[in-house]
């Protein structure tokens, strides 16, 4: 039931629209009125509201999950990271909640019973809290009321401070614990991120056309250089692109001061401030750039560059350049992070890559938080190429971001510039997709399949093999090695079918040798083929014991033998070594058609092996190069 009073200060009509309201700011004179039953006390004036890019306003009605609410009050809260708007909302069923806005993101939080919660000092960023075990602390600090608007169900005064811890839970859950000015939780607000559309306030975005924050021109107080502030309502720091001075921005440019005159740009940004890039179907504007580094000393530091992009609806994202490699990085909801040796996020498993202290070395452009040169965070990267999950934490904050590798050609195309204008790629990036990824396994499967085909061909050939001639050649008694008398000429025999021809001899050799000069000739003078064969078998004994080498067997293959009638001519030469008394009297000959060659099968197998072996080797080299930059190099 509404309650109307006259402002004790200016006499204007002031309406307490909700029974639960305790304080109200007079919209005419900005006096803060406190209600105690029927008594109204004026506790003094509150400061004017700081201009912010919020699209919300008092009195607006929306709905959340089917329940209607109205915006009844607003608190402008100073946090370590800057000024936030926190809007008090009242649901039609009497429930109360907050709509917190920060850097263009909104969280709708409902008052819940705090229950058993840890003390403020036990809330450490990056750790999950007891009681609400699924929620992770992502931010702790002290909030200060800067000014107020509308009516509120609790007695808040400008300058009042309280300890808070922000928590992130699974599936987008978000919570804030209010510890008052002590250790024990006095209130808890639980909810999740929500868009204007999800809040039934989409018309506010459409009305504003997201064009509220027009760029503002200003002058660097140090060098008088002309600066452009593209997000005057959000930016907290501006680094002059001419003299490097880092400027602090309070509110809407009412106060600018040289925060750091030592900030000299240590790198040449790849893009100009204000440059536009078309990424993921959206046009982004480059607001700022910074160089960060990590490493044990100034001489061995490893640096990379981060470009802050902004788009009115999507908010902020980073484009990170590291040795010519690029990643697009977005904030990620830490509550969905599953800790462990490996991290799980968004259904993906990420392997630890590197942990380091990341330091801001120099910056240019504007930033929506109070960034400082030399700012250090504990960083840990986990990878699942092309994704990279980065955890950054300080004593008061835990931040999770998800990056995706993007080809430099795509970056160049997004900015409408030539690819050579970007830094040259060096080495392999942690999140760079392995170009051989997904190829190695299938290649080996195909190798096995093709090998099976080759073996089947080999076995099939073997089944078709047949002997077309065989005999024992007896050397004429007294015949001299190499003499015409020793020449053997077979009777004609038929060679049928297809395939090669193998001539195989076996001689009972013992420290002796047999050399054959052979000819396979078609009896109709259609084809003739010459070949040579040599067999030798030697044995003996030395200080290492008995030894032997060679054999009495020799083979020769002939190709392109057409079917027909053939004779075989063999001109033998033989001899002995040492004191061998063994006299060669005969040897066996076999002529066989269509004999599969194991050596040719091996050559074919080697040929089809080389491709998958090369791809496997390249893939492995790529991974070795990737991990050489990690904490796990060589392991």
């Amino acid at each position, binding site marked *: 039931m509404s309650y109307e009073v006259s402002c004790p200060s200016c006499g204007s009509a002031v309406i307490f629209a909700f029974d639960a309201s305790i304080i109200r700011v007079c919209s005419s004179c900005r006096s803060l009125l406190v209600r105690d039953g029927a008594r109204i006390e004026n506790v003094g004036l509150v400061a004017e509201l700081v201009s912010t890019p919020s699209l919300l306003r008092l009195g607006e009605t929306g709905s959340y999950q089917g329940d209607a609410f109205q915006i009844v009050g607003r608190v402008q809260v100073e946090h370590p990271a800057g000024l936030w708007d926190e809007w008090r909302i009242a649901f039609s069923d009497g429930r109360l909640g907050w709509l917190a806005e920060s850097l263009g993101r909104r969280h709708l939080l409902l008052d819940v019973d705090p229950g058993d919660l840890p003390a403020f000092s036990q809330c450490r960023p990056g750790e999950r809290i007891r009681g609400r075990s699924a929620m992770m602390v992502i931010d702790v600090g002290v909030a200060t009321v800067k000014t107020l608007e509308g009516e509120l169900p609790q007695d808040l005064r400008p300058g009042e401070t309280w300890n808070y811890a922000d928590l992130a839970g699974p599936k987008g859950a978000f919570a804030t614990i209010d510890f008052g000015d002590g250790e024990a939780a006095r209130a808890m607000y639980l909810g999740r991120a929500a868009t204007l559309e999800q809040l039934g306030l989409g018309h506010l975005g459409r009305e504003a056309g997201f064009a509220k924050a027009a760029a503002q021109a200003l002058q660097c107080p140090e060098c008088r250089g002309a600066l452009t502030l593209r997000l005057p309502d959000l930016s907290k720091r501006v680094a002059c692109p001419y003299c490097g001075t880092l400027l602090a921005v309070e509110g809407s440019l009412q106060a600018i001061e040289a925060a750091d005159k030592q900030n000299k740009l240590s790198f040449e940004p790849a893009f100009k401030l204000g440059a536009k890039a078309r990424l993921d179907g959206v046009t982004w504007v480059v607001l700022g750039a910074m160089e960060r580094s990590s490493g044990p000393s100034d001489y061995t530091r490893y640096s990379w560059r981060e470009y802050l992009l902004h788009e009115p609806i999507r908010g902020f994202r980073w484009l990170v350049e590291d040795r010519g490699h690029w990643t697009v990085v977005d904030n990620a909801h830490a509550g969905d992070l599953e800790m462990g040796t490996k991290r799980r996020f968004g259904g993906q498993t990420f392997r630890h890559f590197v942990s380091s202290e990341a330091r801001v070395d120099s910056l240019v452009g504007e930033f929506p938080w109070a960034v400082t040169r030399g700012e250090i965070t504990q960083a840990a990267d986990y990878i699942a190429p092309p994704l990279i999950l980065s955890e950054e934490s300080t004593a008061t904050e835990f931040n999770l971001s998800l990056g995706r590798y993007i080809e430099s050609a795509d970056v160049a195309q997004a900015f409408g510039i030539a690819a050579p204008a970007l830094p040259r790629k060096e080495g392999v990036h942690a999140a760079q997709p392995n170009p051989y990824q997904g*190829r190695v396994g299938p290649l080996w499967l195909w190798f096995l399949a093709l090998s099976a085909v080759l073996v089947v*061909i080999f076995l099939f050939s073997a089944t078709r093999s047949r002997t077309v001639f065989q005999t024992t050649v007896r050397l004429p008694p007294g015949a001299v090695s190499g003499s015409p008398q020793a020449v053997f000429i077979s009777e004609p025999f038929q060679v049928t079918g297809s*395939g*090669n021809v193998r001539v195989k001899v076996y001689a009972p050799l013992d420290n002796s040798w047999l050399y054959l000069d052979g000819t396979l000739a078609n*009896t109709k003078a259609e*084809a003739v083929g010459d070949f040579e064969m040599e067999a030798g078998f030697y044995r003996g004994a030395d200080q290492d014991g008995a030894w032997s080498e060679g054999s009495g067997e020799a083979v020769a*293959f002939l*190709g392109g033998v057409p079917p027909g009638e053939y004779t075989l001519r063999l001109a033998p030469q033989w001899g002995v070594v040492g004191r061998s008394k063994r006299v060669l009297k005969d040897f066996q000959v076999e002529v066989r058609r269509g004999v599969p060659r194991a050596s040719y099968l091996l050559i074919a197998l080697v040929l089809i092996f080389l491709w998958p072996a090369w791809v496997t080797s390249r893939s492995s080299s790529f991974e070795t190069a990737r991990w050489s930059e990690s904490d796990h190099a060589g392991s």
Partner: protein
Amino acid sequence: MKKSPGYLVFGVLVALVYGVASVAGWEWGNTMGRGPRGAQGLSSYRGGK
């Protein structure tokens, strides 16, 4: 195999060449040729080379 069509083509070619070579009896080195020798030529061999 979507990512390695080249390998499949190459592998099939190798298998084809190997299959044809096996059936046709291709050999390195010793290959039959059309020579002046034959039944008549053999007589010249009887006296040896």
